[in-house]
């Protein structure tokens, strides 16, 4: 259980860094935003990513993957966060791929995972129903009928749904909103009758949608895992995505911080570099300490997950909570310490703050994860 990326993971990380710096700097996201690109990410860049193997990075070789593990993916996500790369890696691979891996039967895994890995198939998870993450507050229903189920309900914050081929819908086959039991997972064709997808535009210029299911009919074979027992595999999959998202967020935090420190070494006021002011130095030094603590918690969670430790879910919550809080601190300070130029659209620092807030919220903010950590600790 080492708290450091191994040589293979470090080499993956270097590759990821080189790739996004060359192919998807922050400027690319700005262009996508300004041109109101209907896809919202570059299919060309995603195609190259798939070719380089990122589409199957966490899947076992038996399903067309490369088996680098979540630690390997997280190492890359950190680099992707540094340039705010928009791609379906989180939605289709880390999140939906993990749900299929955790809940799917052999046939489903064989069919779906290799297609996700090869980029032919994009799958999005339709989970949230409220304004904040809550994986048990499910009121979308799946009613049993002959040979299948009928799904009705509304979902929000569905990442990349507007380009998805299939959706994994978290629906209730029994129980009440808030219950762990009774949650089921269904694969639904994004073009099926009764599915309506409308893209939402959030501050981070990434891709989310609200999706309604109006009496959508699916067959029994659409069920992933056992009816009513979907929460446990879902939560395991969410944990994979949570730590990957935390790693992405952490990459953005480091980038915003480093840019800020560099700015303090260039900007002059009162005839001196503003980096000479102790008031600013201490704020930067404090941020540095928080960033180091984040890194330790991220590595702690990844190592526990890799080793299959029972405490892994709590540690993932610890990491997501701490990184989310630090993201708020650092991106706010980054804007503030840049002064007037910090609040202009021209400077990229604002992009980091906007992405941070959405990434903090997605899959559970600090408040959610402190609560989850406490619950898992029996406190």
């Amino acid at each position, binding site marked *: 259980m080492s708290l450091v990326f191994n040589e293979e993971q470090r080499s993956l990380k270097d590759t990821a860094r080189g790739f996004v710096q060359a192919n998807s700097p922050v400027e690319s996201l700005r262009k996508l935003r300004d041109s109101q690109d209907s896809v919202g990410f570059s299919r060309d860049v995603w195609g190259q990513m798939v070719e380089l193997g990122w589409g199957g990075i966490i899947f076992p070789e038996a399903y067309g993957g490369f088996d680098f593990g979540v630690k390997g993916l997280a190492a890359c996500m950190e680099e992707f966060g540094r340039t705010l790369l928009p791609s379906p890696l989180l939605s289709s691979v880390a999140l939906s791929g993990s749900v299929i891996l955790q809940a799917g039967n052999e046939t489903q895994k064989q069919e779906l995972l290799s297609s996700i890995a090869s980029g032919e198939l994009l799958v999005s998870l339709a989970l949230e129903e409220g304004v904040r993450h809550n994986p048990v507050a499910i009121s979308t229903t799946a009613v049993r009928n002959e040979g299948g189920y009928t799904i009705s309900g509304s979902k929000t914050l569905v990442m990349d749904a507007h380009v998805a081929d299939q959706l994994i819908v978290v629906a209730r086959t029994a129980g009440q909103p808030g219950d762990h039991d009774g949650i089921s997972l269904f694969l639904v064709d994004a073009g099926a009758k009764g599915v309506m997808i409308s893209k939402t535009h959030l501050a981070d210029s990434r891709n989310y949608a609200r999706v309604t299911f109006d009496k959508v009919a699916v067959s029994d074979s659409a069920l992933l895992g056992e009816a009513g027992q979907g929460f446990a595999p879902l939560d395991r999959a969410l944990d994979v995505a949570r730590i990957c998202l935390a790693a992405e967020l952490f990459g953005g935090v480091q980038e915003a911080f480093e840019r800020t420190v560099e700015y303090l070494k260039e900007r002059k006021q009162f005839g001196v*570099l503003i980096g000479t002011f102790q008031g600013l*130095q201490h704020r930067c*030094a404090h941020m540095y300490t928080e960033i180091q603590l984040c*890194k330790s918690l991220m590595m702690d969670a990844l190592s526990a997950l890799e080793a299959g430790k029972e405490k892994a879910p709590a540690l993932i919550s610890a990491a997501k909570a701490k990184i989310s809080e630090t993201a708020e601190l650092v991106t706010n300070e980054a804007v503030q310490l840049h002064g007037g130029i910090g609040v202009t659209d021209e400077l990229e620092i604002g992009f980091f703050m906007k992405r941070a807030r959405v990434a903090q919220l997605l899959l559970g903010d600090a408040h959610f994860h402190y609560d989850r950590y406490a619950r898992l600790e029996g406190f």
Partner: protein
Amino acid sequence: MSDLTTFRQEIRDWLNDNCPESMRTPVTQEEQIWGGRNLRFPTEDAKLWFDRCVEKGYCVPDWPEEYGGAGFSAKETRIFKEEMARLNCRAPQVNLGIWMVGPAILEFGTEEQKREHLPKIARGEIRWCQGYSEPGAGSDLAGLQCKAESDGDDYIINGSKIWTSYADHSDWIYCLVRTDPDAPKHEGITFLLFDMASEGVDAKPIELITGETHFCQTFFDNVRVPKKNALGVENKGWTVAKRVLQFERNMMSDMEASANTSGTTPRSAAIEHIGLVDGKLADPVFRQSVVRHEIQKRALDKTQQRMADEFAQGVGDMSVAMILKYVGTEEEKRKYELILKIAGEQALGWSGEGFSDAELQLTRDWLASKTHSIAGGTSEIQLNIIAKRVLGLPDAAGK
């Protein structure tokens, strides 16, 4: 089984066989073994445990065997500490010799100095104190004025030191003195070792907010010290001093565990004074504060572990060590403030009826935590160091 797995098992077996049961409980202030010429053992078990550890070199497990250590590698030392912690074994002895001046002598001492001082530290025969700060030189340590004037083969020391912990119970002092008053302030300092029994040394205790008096002001009136007692080169003592401060900061970030002699944690206080309902703390605001503290503390522990792992993989970075003292001591203060809020009146008892010993200790622990973010380089000095040395932010001259 790897060698380290075997090693861990051997240590575990040895501790199981040799550490008396009574030495596996949290140590109280009175029972802490500091070593020195006046060493007395509070119990038979304490003596037995001390003697067994001394024999194996376990008071200083990472020192070479020839100087009284056990010769453990960094990894072995870590395992040793983990196993000690697992059984809640008390440290056989704690003192500034082990933590600070010993490692400095190992690094900067002559062979003669190593042979003279290190085994005595390892065996707990000499207790050391630290003469750094002066009434006029706190955070600006290099501004120190205590002078050492040359007189043949000796120096004559005149001046005063403050915050010399346990100076009144210590046998030797490592002391920063000014040997060249005309040089720039960092370049005229010598790191000197001398016997507190020397003529002209006087230590007066200072009472702290905790009510304790283990800090002293120490006065030197024409104290004669042989020049060969300098550690490192004359006028180059600042280099040694900085290194010792690093040892001190690393030690202080570890303080949290040993300092909390009341044994109270925010969680234990919350369970006692607020209570769980259906396995959940009844107050959601305190619940979040407690969890936040626990995660911060884990982050600090894991940062130390991560540093060790990074060095083991050849990607280590000493910059990370710079955060430990600041984070450790600041979080310790937050921890006690949180316990105070949770335990209310029971955490503010000063003396007499109505409070357990642990509760009275808790009040002292809370106050003592205020000293840790000041001693050994204030939090503000730590932030200065991070800003300049790690982040490369320019200093006021614009350099």
